[in-house]
């Protein structure tokens, strides 16, 4: 596919051996990033936002998230496992958190932290940011990386509404690094490995929107680690040592839909699920809704428990995390023995490091940089779209007739790929007509378009 500069890169890949070219992913993709070429799904890197919907719907398990080699942890003296609270929520409640932690240690990790340790510090940074930008009415949370990219490509006019702060993951990794270095570790000996529930988070580590390096040495898929730990939990869970780090109830709830918004006083919204997010942004862009305050947005239904690498049912996992939060509430847990952010010099420094300098709009709609040329293309596209049957059969390798029309004017496809327009025999003419009647077009339209 013709592409200029590539500004997005992904860990989401197609396994050509398994892909049957069935078009399911292509017709699901919210940004129209997928085409069928050579009988296989091909992803346009600049259009993909890592939402993971294609992985969820693929009947052949042909889409996957490329993770780092687990052996990579052996390169480091300090092998740190950074797990989201969502990971703990994957396990049945009969398994204690410390049993899960102990399995991670048996797998070779020397230190284990949960990602959400710093969210209260982060919420303060959010609030400061909101106070510093009185000209903005609706603030969109930067937490879900797929939402940020979706806004960049589909809603570029809303880019300035995103709070330009990095995620709890960046914060926790930075604080862990400091803690271990304070204890005498050398920078090169610390390997922090993040366990990701989705394709978007891994992309945000590998190719961050800030274009600044993260402190993360590698990323491990959550389903992979879940399987490893689950096997060990069955084997034995007798060799358990207590772990000191604690989260607060608010930390545990953060990855769930509503967990972020509820920490804000005044007006706030929690929007989850791909289609809900799109329709909210669409209306926000048109000012058809007025949503002052913080808008939490998660591409996955229910938040991170709905991530494509979460193995357990999202509603069950959610319930477990809510139970865990309630327990912590009862115990009046404070963030002790975990990571500290109250050292004022460090917190000032980290607050600066957490700022994302710029989020660039990356409109996927723009047909050409030259307005006159774009205008010509748009007119031609409208004409072609009228000539196409509007059936959206995808046999041309594009998700819809509108998408094919766009591909044609962009010079990436030919109108001859439309099986409705290109009927070679009377038999195929009759067969198609028997199904679609007058919606089929004649070849003259095709010829007309080619003039």
């Amino acid at each position: 596919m013709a592409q200029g500069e590539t500004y997005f890169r992904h860990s989401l890949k197609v396994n050509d051996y398994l892909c049957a070219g069935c078009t399911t992913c292509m017709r699901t993709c919210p940004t129209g990033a997928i085409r069928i070429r050579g009988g296989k799904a091909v992803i346009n890197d600049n259009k993909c936002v890592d939402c993971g919907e294609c992985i969820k719907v693929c009947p052949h398990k042909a889409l996957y998230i490329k993770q780092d080699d687990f052996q990579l942890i052996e390169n480091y003296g300090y092998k740190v496992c950074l797990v989201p609270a969502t990971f703990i929520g994957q396990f049945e409640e009969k398994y204690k958190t410390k049993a899960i932690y102990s399995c991670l240690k048996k797998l070779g990790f020397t230190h284990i932290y949960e990602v959400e340790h710093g969210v209260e510090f982060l919420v303060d940074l959010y609030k400061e940011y909101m106070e510093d930008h009185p000209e903005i009415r609706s603030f969109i949370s930067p937490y879900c990386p797929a939402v940020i990219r979706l806004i960049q490509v589909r809603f570029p006019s809303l880019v300035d509404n995103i709070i330009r702060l990095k995620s709890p993951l960046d914060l926790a990794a930075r604080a862990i690094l400091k803690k271990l270095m304070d204890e005498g570790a050398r920078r090169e000996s610390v390997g922090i490995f993040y366990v990701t529930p989705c394709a978007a988070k891994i992309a945000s580590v590998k190719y961050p929107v800030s274009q600044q390096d993260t402190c993360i040495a590698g990323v491990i898929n959550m389903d992979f680690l879940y399987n490893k730990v689950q096997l060990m939990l069955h084997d034995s869970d007798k060799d358990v040592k207590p772990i000191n780090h604690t989260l607060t109830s608010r930390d545990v709830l953060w990855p769930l839909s509503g967990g972020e918004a509820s920490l804000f006083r005044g007006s706030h919204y929690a929007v989850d699920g791909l289609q809900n997010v799109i329709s909210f942004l669409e209306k926000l862009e048109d000012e058809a809704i007025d949503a002052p305050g913080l808008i939490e947005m998660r591409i996955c239904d229910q938040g991170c428990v709905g991530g494509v690498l979460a193995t357990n049912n999202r509603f069950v996992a959610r319930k477990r995390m809510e139970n865990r939060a309630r327990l912590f509430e009862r115990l009046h847990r404070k963030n002790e023995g975990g990571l500290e952010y109250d050292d004022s010099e460090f917190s000032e420094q980290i607050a600066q490091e957490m700022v994302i300098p710029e989020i660039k709009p990356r409109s996927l709609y723009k047909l050409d940089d030259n307005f006159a040329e774009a205008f010509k293309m748009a007119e031609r596209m409208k004409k072609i779209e009228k000539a196409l049957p509007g059936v959206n059969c995808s046999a041309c390798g594009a998700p819809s007739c509108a998408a094919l029309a766009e591909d044609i004017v962009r010079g990436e496809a030919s109108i001859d790929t439309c099986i409705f327009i290109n009927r070679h025999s009377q038999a195929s003419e009759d067969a198609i007509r028997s199904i679609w009647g007058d919606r089929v077009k004649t070849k003259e339209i095709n010829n007309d378009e080619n003039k």
Partner: protein
Amino acid sequence: MHYTFNIERGNFTDAGQASSSVKRTLKQLGVDPANIKRTVVALFEAEINAVAHAYGGTIDVDIDGEKIVMVVADEGPGIPNLDLAMQEGWSTASQKVREMGYGAGMGLPNIKKNTDDLKIDTKVGVGTTVTMTVYLN
């Protein structure tokens, strides 16, 4: 490029399709996001006005190299006092309309704020034609 849409009285649910469709084209043309926003906000306001007050109507949008011209023409009660209607907060919207979150009396003032040129032809008992122009440069 020309677009035509129909307006159906009281159908708030489907309102916004015209602005969404125009928005998509403007994004394809690479029009500056600020101008897209102005256009879409004005068109949506005008459409909602017609949905709330008129008996039905049409939206015609023309885009050329320099400007976007949007004409929202309705058959309806007309606007008896245009000067009042242009004031922020003035509204004749029914309780039902207000309950849906509209009718705050910001419609016409908001359109004026977001367009470069605004022309309103109205005749009581006949209808209203709102012509809005946004220049691209």
